[in-house]
C-alpha cells in the first residue's frame, strides 16, 4: 500500500485539513476517497504491489511500478542554476537501472529533475517538451522557466489522482536569470532558491537548511549539491549509483558525472 501524505498550507490550493490518501493498486479515479492534506511534502518510494494471483514464481516486477526512488536537488546562483540527481531506478527491491539520467532536458536551457513513478514522469516530461517546443516556436524566442513550470503544474494538478510525480523544474532564461521551481506530488508550484525532492530528500533537509547561503558561486553550488546528494544516497535505500550534475547558464549546459568512488567522503559514511 502506498501512502501519500502531503502537507500544504501554501499557494492557495487548499487550507482545509483532509484525510491521508490511500493509493490502491488499480489506477482508477479516487474521487470516492476523502483526502486529508497537511503541511510539508514527503516523497515515499513508490512500490505499489498489486494483487499477485500468480504464484511467487515470478517476481512482482510485472505488477510493481517502476519508481525513481530518488534524491534530486536544484540550487539557484548568480547567473544560472545547478541541478543534481542520483541514478537509481527501482522495481520493488530490484534496481532496474543503476545509471539512470533523471535530469531531463525540456528545452535548450530548461531541465527537469524527475522523482516518483518512472513511467508517469517520463510521459509528463515528453508531453511538456512537446508543448514547450511548440510554444517557443510560436513565440520565436526562448521560453521562460516559469512557463515550463506552469505546464508541469497544469498537468500534475489536473491528473493528480492518476499520477505520482514530484518534479523540480530549473533553468535559465534571459528575463529572470536562473530559477528553480518545485512541482511536488499534488500539483503545487512554487519558486524556491534551493529545492530538494525524492525519497532521499527527507534525510538532507537539515543539511541543506544549515549549509545554504544566498550568493554562492557556481563552484560552491556544485560542491554543496554533490555533498547533499551523497549524504542522501548514503541514507536512503532507494537512492544510489552515481551523482549526475548539470550547470545551466547563459552560456549553455555543462553536465558532469561523479562516479561512486569519487563521491565526497564524510566521517560516518
Amino acid at each position, binding site marked *: 500500500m502506498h501512502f501519500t501524505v502531503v502537507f500544504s498550507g501554501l499557494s492557495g490550493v487548499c487550507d482545509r485539513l483532509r484525510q491521508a490518501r490511500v493509493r490502491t493498486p488499480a489506477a482508477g*479515479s479516487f474521487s470516492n476517497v476523502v483526502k486529508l492534506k497537511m503541511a510539508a511534502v514527503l516523497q515515499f518510494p513508490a512500490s505499489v504491489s498489486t494483487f499477485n494471483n500468480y504464484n511467487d514464481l515470478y517476481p512482482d516486477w510485472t505488477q510493481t511500478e517502476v519508481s525513481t526512488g530518488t534524491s534530486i536537488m536544484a540550487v539557484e546562483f548568480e547567473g544560472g542554476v545547478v541541478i543534481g540527481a542520483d541514478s537509481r531506478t527501482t522495481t520493488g527491491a530490484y534496481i532496474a537501472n543503476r545509471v539512470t539520467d533523471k535530469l531531463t532536458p525540456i528545452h535548450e536551457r530548461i531541465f527537469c529533475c524527475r522523482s516518483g513513478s518512472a513511467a508517469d514522469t517520463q510521459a509528463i516530461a515528453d508531453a511538456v517538451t512537446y508543448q514547450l517546443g511548440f510554444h517557443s516556436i510560436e513565440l520565436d524566442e526562448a521560453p521562460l522557466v516559469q512557463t515550463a513550470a506552469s505546464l508541469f503544474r497544469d498537468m500534475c494538478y489536473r491528473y493528480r489522482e492518476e499520477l505520482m510525480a514530484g518534479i523540480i523544474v530549473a533553468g535559465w532564461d534571459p528575463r529572470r536569470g536562473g530559477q528553480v521551481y518545485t512541482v511536488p506530488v499534488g500539483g503545487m508550484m512554487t519558486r524556491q532558491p534551493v529545492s530538494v525532492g525524492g525519497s532521499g530528500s527527507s534525510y538532507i533537509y537539515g543539511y541543506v537548511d544549515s549549509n545554504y547561503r544566498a550568493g554562492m558561486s557556481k563552484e560552491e553550488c556544485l560542491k554543496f549539491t554533490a555533498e547533499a546528494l551523497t549524504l542522501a544516497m548514503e541514507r536512503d535505500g532507494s537512492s544510489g549509483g552515481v551523482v549526475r550534475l548539470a550547470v545551466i547558464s547563459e552560456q549553455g549546459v555543462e553536465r558532469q558525472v561523479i562516479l561512486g568512488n569519487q563521491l565526497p567522503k564524510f566521517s560516518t559514511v
Partner: protein
Amino acid sequence: MASVSVCQYHSGGFSFENCKRNALLEADINKLGFSSPAARKTGTTICGVVYKDGVVLGADTRATEGMVVADKNCSKIHYISPNIYCCGAGTAADTEMTTQIISSNLELHSLSTGRLPRVTTANRMLKQMLFRYQGYIGAALVLGGVDCNGPHLYSIYPHGSTDKLPYVTMGSGSLAAMAVFEDRYRPNMEEEEAKRLVRDAIAAGIFNDLGSGSNIDLCVITKGNVDYLRPHDMANKKGVRTGSYRYKHGTTGVLTKAVTPLNLEVVEESVQTMDTS
C-alpha cells in the same frame, strides 16, 4: 477543492473502474476455493547487449500457464521492422499483439517518411501505448535494432517507462541473466564474444529460474543484416529413455479369443504429425 462524489463524471480517457471490480471478484472466487483461469505467461529470460557492430538479442523458449509448461518452444523475439526486433516478457498475448500493432504502425510510418525506421521511434510508440493502458497490458519488452544513428537497445516496462542502456535483461530470470552481464560485459565486444555472453546469460536464466527453460534463441542485428538464430542452442534436449516398458509377445497368456469384424469403408485418409518434441 476536489469534489468528493462517487458518481463523478469521468471526462475523457480510459476508465479502469472495472479492473478494481474484477480484482475484488477474483479475490472472492479464490476465497471459495476456485481459481480463475491463469493467463499464459512467458515466465522468461530475455536480454540484449550492444556490441561493436550492432545488437544481440536473446530469449529462452518456455511459455507457462500457471505451473504447467504450455509451449516448450515458443518464439519470444518478435519482428518489428527489418532492422528492429523486440523480445517480450510478461503475458504472452500482450507481448504478441503489442509488437504486432507497433510493427504495423511502424511500417506505415516508414512508408510515409520514405526512410528506414529508427529504434527510438519504435520505443516512443511502445511506451506511449503502454502508458495509455496504465500497466494493464502486461508487456515487458527488450527492444533492439540498428538504424542510421547506430545500434540502440531499450528496455520497456509495462507501465510505460523506458531505459536506454548498453545491456538489459527482463523477465523472471532477469536477475540471473543480469548477474552474468554485470560480470562479463565490456563495451565494443566482438560478435562471437557478444553471442557467447548473451547465450550464457539466457542459460543462467534457464537453469536457475523455474519460469524459463528449453532452448536459447538469438537474434544478431547489424547494419544491413539480421541473423535470426532459432534455436541457437538446444540447452534442454529431451533425453533417451534407458529402459523400456514393452513386454515380449506371449508374456500374458491368452485364454479365449473372440473376433468381430467391422465392415467399414475407408473414404479418406490424412496424416497429421503431432509435435512431440
